[in-house]
């Protein structure tokens, strides 16, 4: 006869689930409200989402306190892993989401925002990403990733333009492929180590001294391909510009931030144990991936005619730049990754939000895409404030000091230097110089060309108070980042270091 299963509730440590549960409860309550009364205004749903995100944030701050005094927390049959990486990345996810959701309060009507399902899916997606980062169990990572991705595909498609459907289908196909790769890679690792938990895989591999090196290679290649799709590393990046172009600018900005930080954390957990094993070819593959992603994406960005596509390629390049942290693998580099991404949240979301405010419902005659460079010509004389803000975000993306991303770049290049990667440091620096050109191109259009559209207010037609506040917040953080860097860095380094990365 089977023994009775006897599990105490305490040993489950359900509190580790609380942030995700809050997000899920938020999603369910939005659906419930819709059941009770239909046709409510979108502002209600936005505010409910915000409230639950705020609660989520509160739970995370509780974790921060707990982590500081007690260290890493495990729960739910040791599937949940709440360490510094999990907390940091969840903080970034939730804060970026809180900045994103008010962007739906546009002054123009976009029909997806009138569906409560939009907000419910959004909350489910956040829960998915949170699961993904708060575990080192490959199965739960997979479940979290797929939950989030499926919700995201739908959010893209709801934008309801032919390009959005194309984008959603493209993203879905690529995502399905990535999921297949991920599942296959996990299977290989399970096969050679008998475990689906990353730390156990690592110790099992180390125990037999990497005897099954061929299988490890296969597993790593599949995993790299899977994350290559999710992080849009070259050559798995081809979907990115099309998908960004098809999504609303706000969602595109969101996609360039949140799914990537989640994938970075998983990649960090997985690849750093493998890189530290001293397998040379893995380092070579990662090195090549990082350099090619940064450089090629930068060169493609040079030739784009649409600002949104340019920003898509630029975000690929930024991802490659940050991926270097996983190659370098020191505490300094990993902390640099989080610092970079925190600052990137504000700058990049600000830039995409600036595109979002001038989104037209219909294209003008002769206009081939939503945001061609020509549209911004002479913005300084028609809308000086908008031009200055956009230029600010571009300068920050280019890494001009003292704006936000400069500090991220400083830390990343600095950690490459101290990690002994001299050539990589130089390549990173030179790539920033190449990137300077296409960010500058937009500034040139805005400040040095004659305006083509004289209609006043054209550029702010989609603006509302909440959009303006988000952009203002992003700008303030970008400008005054110099004060934030030190406290942020101390916090991040402590969290990363105490998690053993």
């Amino acid at each position, binding site marked *: 006869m089977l023994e009775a299963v006897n599990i105490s509730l305490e040993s489950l440590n359900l509190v580790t689930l609380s942030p995700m549960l809050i997000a899920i409860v938020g999603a369910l309550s939005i659906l419930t409200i819709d059941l009770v009364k239909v046709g409510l205004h979108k502002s209600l749903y936005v505010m409910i989402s915000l409230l639950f995100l705020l609660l989520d944030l509160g739970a995370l701050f509780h974790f921060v306190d707990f982590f500081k005094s007690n260290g890493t927390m495990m729960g739910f049959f040791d599937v949940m892993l709440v360490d510094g990486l999990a907390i940091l990345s969840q903080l970034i996810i939730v804060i970026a989401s809180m900045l994103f959701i008010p962007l739906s309060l546009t002054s123009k009507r976009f029909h997806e925002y009138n569906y409560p399902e939009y907000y419910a899916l959004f909350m489910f997606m956040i829960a998915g990403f949170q699961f993904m980062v708060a575990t080192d169990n490959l199965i739960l990572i997979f479940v979290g990733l797929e939950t989030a991705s499926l919700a995201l595909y739908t959010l893209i498609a709801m934008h309801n333009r032919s390009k959005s459907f194309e984008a959603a289908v493209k993203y879905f196909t690529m995502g399905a492929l990535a999921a297949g790769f991920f599942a296959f890679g996990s299977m290989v690792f399970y096969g050679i180590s008998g475990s689906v938990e990353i730390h156990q895989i690592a110790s099992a591999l180390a125990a037999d001294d990497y005897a099954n090196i061929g299988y490890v290679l296969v597993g790593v290649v599949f995993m790299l391909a899977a994350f290559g799709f999710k992080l849009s590393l070259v050559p798995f990046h081809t979907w990115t510009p099309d998908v960004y172009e098809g999504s609303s600018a706000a969602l595109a900005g969101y996609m360039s931030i949140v799914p990537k930080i989640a994938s970075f954390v998983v990649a960090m957990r997985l690849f750093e144990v493998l890189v530290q094993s001293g397998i040379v070819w893995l380092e070579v593959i990662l090195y090549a991936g990082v350099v090619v992603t940064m450089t090629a994406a930068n060169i493609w960005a040079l030739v784009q005619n649409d600002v949104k596509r340019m920003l898509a390629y630029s975000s690929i390049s930024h991802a490659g730049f940050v991926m270097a942290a996983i190659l370098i693998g020191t505490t300094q580099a990993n902390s640099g990754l989080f610092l970079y991404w925190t600052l990137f949240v504000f700058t990049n979301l600000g830039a995409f939000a600036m595109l979002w405010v001038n989104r037209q419902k219909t294209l003008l005659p002769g206009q081939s895409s939503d945001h061609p460079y020509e549209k911004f010509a002479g913005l300084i004389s028609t809308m000086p404030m908008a031009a200055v803000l956009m230029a600010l975000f571009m300068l920050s993306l280019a890494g001009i*000091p003292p704006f936000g991303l400069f500090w991220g770049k400083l830390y990343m290049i600095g950690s490459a*230097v101290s990690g002994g990667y001299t050539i990589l440091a*130089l390549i990173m620096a030179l790539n920033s*110089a190449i990137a300077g050109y296409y960010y500058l191109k937009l500034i040139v259009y805005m400040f*040095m060309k004659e305006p083509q559209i004289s209609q006043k207010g054209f550029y702010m037609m989609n603006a509302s108070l909440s959009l303006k506040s988000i952009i203002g917040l992003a700008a303030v953080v970008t400008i005054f980042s110099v004060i934030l860097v030190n406290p942020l*860095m101390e916090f991040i380094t402590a969290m990363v270091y105490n998690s053993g990365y």
Partner: protein
Amino acid sequence: MMFDNILSILVFFPALAALLGFVVEKGSIRAYGIAVAAVEFALSLVLWYAYDPSVVGMQFMESIPLVPAFGIHYLVGIDGISLFIIVLATFFTLIGIASLGEVSRLKDMILTLLFLEMTMVGVFVALDAVVFYVFWELSLVPMLYIIGAWGGPLRIYASIKFFLYTFTGSLVMLVGMLFMAYFYHQATGVWSFSILEWYRLVLPENFQIWLFVAFFFGFAIKVPMFPFHTWLPYAHGQAPTIGSVILAAILLKMGTYAFVRFSLPMFPDASVFFMVPIAVISIIMIIYTAMVAYAQEDIKQVVAYSSVSHMGVIVLGTFALNVEGISGSVFLMIAHGVVSGALFMLVGVYYDRRHTKLLSEMGGLASVMPHYATIFGIMVMASVGLPLTINFVGEFLSLLGFYKQSHILTLLAGTAIIVGAIYMLAAFKKAFFGTVTNEANRGLKDVNGRELFALIPLVLVTVWLGVYPKPVLEPINNSVESIVSLMHEKAITQEAKMRIPNPSQQEAASGGSH
């Protein structure tokens, strides 16, 4: 003490004023700009007054931790080397704004100039490498806007070329800075970006050489040294008058100043190692650009190339690695600023009237615009290094310094400077002497009051410092002495010890009784 925060005030006052300036009504912006720049200039004079030349080391230091975990501090301070370049920067901003003609979007222009002033002063007071880098990079943005928005037909190409060239060079320099901080961390266990701390670090020679190269990229593009100079003629050719004036007078000096502030004291052995190659490059720069200048048909390009040519002398003097050479080159930075700034302004005076800069359009101007011709003549004489003008002192000392290192190279450079005089005088003759050939020039008005207000002070400075350079030269000399003795102490190789003479011993040997 009363002057505790004077440097911070000096840096941030123009930026703050520029922010407030957004509110000022368009018609009154010129007066506002002049007032702010005048206050700033007065502040810099107060700084000069309060500066104590007998004190060795940095003065008016301030330190505020920015990112202490990574060793980044807001650390500022000045010595005799930076003091006068700061005064020069505030001076040129003032007369630059005062002499602004009728330009479109005057308000944007003036506010941009005030922002630019912040970054310029910031570069010269910064003693922390990151703070230095921040201002260094930030200075590109207003200049990009000035060239790109108010320049000639090719302005966008020129402004982007200017930006990308400098940006690329400085990113390589940034990697060098990070390496320097890393080595400091290895040696002491703490992070620091303070230049003064870096001075204390003695590096092995091969490290010095690599780091020297990394920093060299950033500085050489800014100077600009041959073969990185190609952006400058475009920038000058397209920039509006005020852009060229500030660019030639101040922004280029950032590069040569950085050589003195970073490369020499931090890498003395590498400096000796690269002395001859750099001297050769400088001489090529002097001769080659002088020849190119001779072939120009546009008077602004003549001035632009002559400006590059003289920058070669500055670099040569810096790499003499002795007190005479370096003091001479720092003095020449000031002199070059005054003279080339004035020349660009003079070209602008003609351009405002005729909207052309072609030499063929000029001719016989001396009879139509006698005052203009006189001032232009004085400045041309100063530019070719006539004794008793400001340039002469700097050039003489620079060459004297280098003479102690290499007789042949100095001789070559000296000849090149004399030959270089030809193109300036030839251009001057073509433009001013003879009869008026172009009917359009006949009715031109002579310089007006606003232009005189900008030009007369420059003439006075040119003559005053040419005749009596001591008040400027002495503080420079004292600070340079401390840098050279630091280099002498730090040098590892025997050759470097020999090439860099210890100033105090030298004085004792020459019979000084201190």
